């Protein structure tokens, strides 16, 4: 019975490779995923025409280095978004992480331990979010809205609003030193990307994360521990907030107690432009990375070509909408 040829054969007279190509072009996913890379190319070409300095090696590497923190945060946000959730506390986690790192440094701990403290802080915030979302089953939006305020409050209380300088060569090293022009911090972000790609697509946990994000009821019916998977997803997200805190502290050489909500919006914009569905269950790692680079190039490019501060939000808004429209228009 298993060898019987199906009477319903869908093979066409056209060759297999043409069919593959056609299927790929018709695939709506592909277009969604092409948004960030295509927009990136268009943007680069445009800026280079206006100011050829845009496409020079020093400029490119400097912009890539600037995209490090957005990339790491976008990768974190990807895990929340894949769960059909969101982590509004991400930006304030960065602030709290840098504050605890500063406190640890003031307390005289060695630098590597300070970095671990920042990451542990991010991880704890993620765990708090994950536990409440997973077990108490409150919508992620309201939980992380609450924890955003809570975490912001903690960093205000711990720091009394004052930044702590961390004048350590070893710390600023990663933001300054480069290999062939490409900065260490960017390489770190890429390494994290590779790691998370493996986690998402080559481990059981990754598959379970996608399944829970797609349909938690079906996932539960298949025996997945939905709450535990959600917890793990939010922990990764929080951890990336902690890593972002370390990178930020390394970049500016001090802690930063004030929450920069831009980080949050930029991270989520990068995730969405990168083709990750806000409804969960569908994700890539390369997409959010390209999305974060896109947004950084846009911001830096506007500064580079000398667009006034008053005009840059307008241009950013138009580009974001245009990037999204360009791709949808093809369907």
């Amino acid at each position: 019975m298993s060898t019987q040829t199906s009477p319903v054969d869908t093979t066409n007279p056209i060759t297999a490779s043409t069919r593959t190509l056609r299927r790929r072009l018709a695939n709506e996913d592909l277009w969604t995923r092409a948004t960030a890379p295509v927009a990136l190319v268009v943007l680069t070409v445009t800026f280079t025409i206006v100011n050829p300095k845009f496409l020079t090696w020093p400029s490119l590497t400097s912009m890539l280095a600037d995209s490090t923190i957005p990339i790491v945060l976008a990768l974190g946000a990807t895990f929340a978004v894949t769960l059909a959730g969101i982590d509004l506390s991400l930006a304030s986690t960065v602030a709290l992480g840098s504050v605890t790192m500063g406190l640890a440094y003031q307390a005289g701990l060695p630098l590597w331990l300070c970095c671990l403290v920042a990451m542990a802080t991010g991880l704890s915030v993620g765990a708090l979010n994950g536990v409440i979302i997973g077990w108490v089953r409150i919508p992620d939006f309201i939980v992380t809205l609450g924890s955003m305020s809570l975490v912001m409050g903690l960093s205000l209380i711990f720091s009394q609003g004052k930044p702590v300088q961390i004048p350590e060569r070893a710390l600023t090293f990663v933001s300054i030193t480069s290999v062939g022009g490409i900065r260490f911090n960017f390489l770190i972000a890429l390494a994290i990307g590779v790691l998370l790609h493996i986690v998402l697509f080559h481990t059981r946990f990754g598959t379970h994360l996608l399944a829970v994000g797609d349909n938690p009821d079906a996932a539960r019916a298949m025996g997945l521990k939905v709450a535990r998977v959600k917890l793990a997803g939010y922990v990764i997200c929080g951890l990336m907030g902690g890593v972002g805190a370390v990178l930020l502290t390394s970049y500016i050489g001090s802690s930063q107690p004030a929450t920069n909500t831009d980080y949050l919006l930029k991270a989520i914009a990068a995730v969405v432009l990168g083709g990750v569905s806000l409804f969960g269950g569908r994700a890539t790692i390369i997409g959010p990375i390209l999305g974060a680079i896109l947004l950084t190039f846009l911001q830096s490019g506007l500064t580079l070509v000398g667009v006034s501060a008053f005009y840059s939000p307008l241009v950013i808004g138009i580009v974001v909408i245009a990037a999204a429209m360009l791709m949808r228009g093809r369907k």
Partner: protein
Amino acid sequence: GCSSSSTPSSTGSSGSIKIALVLKPLDNTYFGAMAQGAQAEATKDGVSLTVVAADNVTDDSGQAAKLNALATEGYDCYIVNPTSQTNLLTGLAPISAAGTPIVNLDLPIDTSAAKSAGVNITTYVGTNNETAGQAGGKAMMNLLSKGDGVALIGGLVGDPGSNARLKGFTDAVNGTLTITQTVAADFDKAKAKSAAATILLANPNIKGFFTPSGDMALGIQQAVEEAGKKGQVAVIGIDGTQDQLKDIVAGGEPAAIEQFPYLMGAQSVQACIAAHSGKTIPTSVETPVLTVTKDNAQAALDAFPAPPSDFVVPNPFQ
């Protein structure tokens, strides 16, 4: 509705005075110092001080709501540093009507709007932000030569304080230096650093950066150093935070404009105590700015957050 708010305390005993301080956000070093100065003065004088703050620099209505809540409680004096020139007027109207003194700190309330709202401001304490910007411009002109290019890295676009400082600077250097571009970095150190790095790439001939915030100045200085242009590009920022002063001493930034927010906070409390005890006080006290360079940086740092010892600031309300 705050009929009970004007109960005068018994004469002389300042210990029973309750002062409310409504500030801009505390996660900003500048406003944080203001709160510290006020608290230190309050502790010294034995008065009770309640500090509330806006959630962010654009939190106009949230700050107003907080003032309204305090108004219900009935304090003996209100010190306000509003996020905009008019946002607190609605809340101040009943306070003023009850005859409670109101001290305006830092950002001046619009006088004509205050008049039409029936709000009587007892006194204003603060630096004229344009003056501070001008001081920055003068310091920059001392360091650069005619025609050199400078870039401005502002705070939040639309923030009145930031705008006034930039305007003061622009007016001062007009005709001497060339302002190549103005960008906004939202009072964020990382953003300021990144913007400065980009500007240095786009315009390698740039000779100076001016910024209205101390945190941003530090970030810009880092960008300058990482571009290998330490000493060739002058970074001047307003605020004069402790870290800025340290950086000047260490040979980083060439100058800063110290604005003494700590002093402003302290003076506003002094004004409250004076007004409450019925003294006639000046309608406006302009706190001075100090241009800090390598010459006087160590002295300024030693005295921080108070002004350096040779910089005498008497209590204008005695």
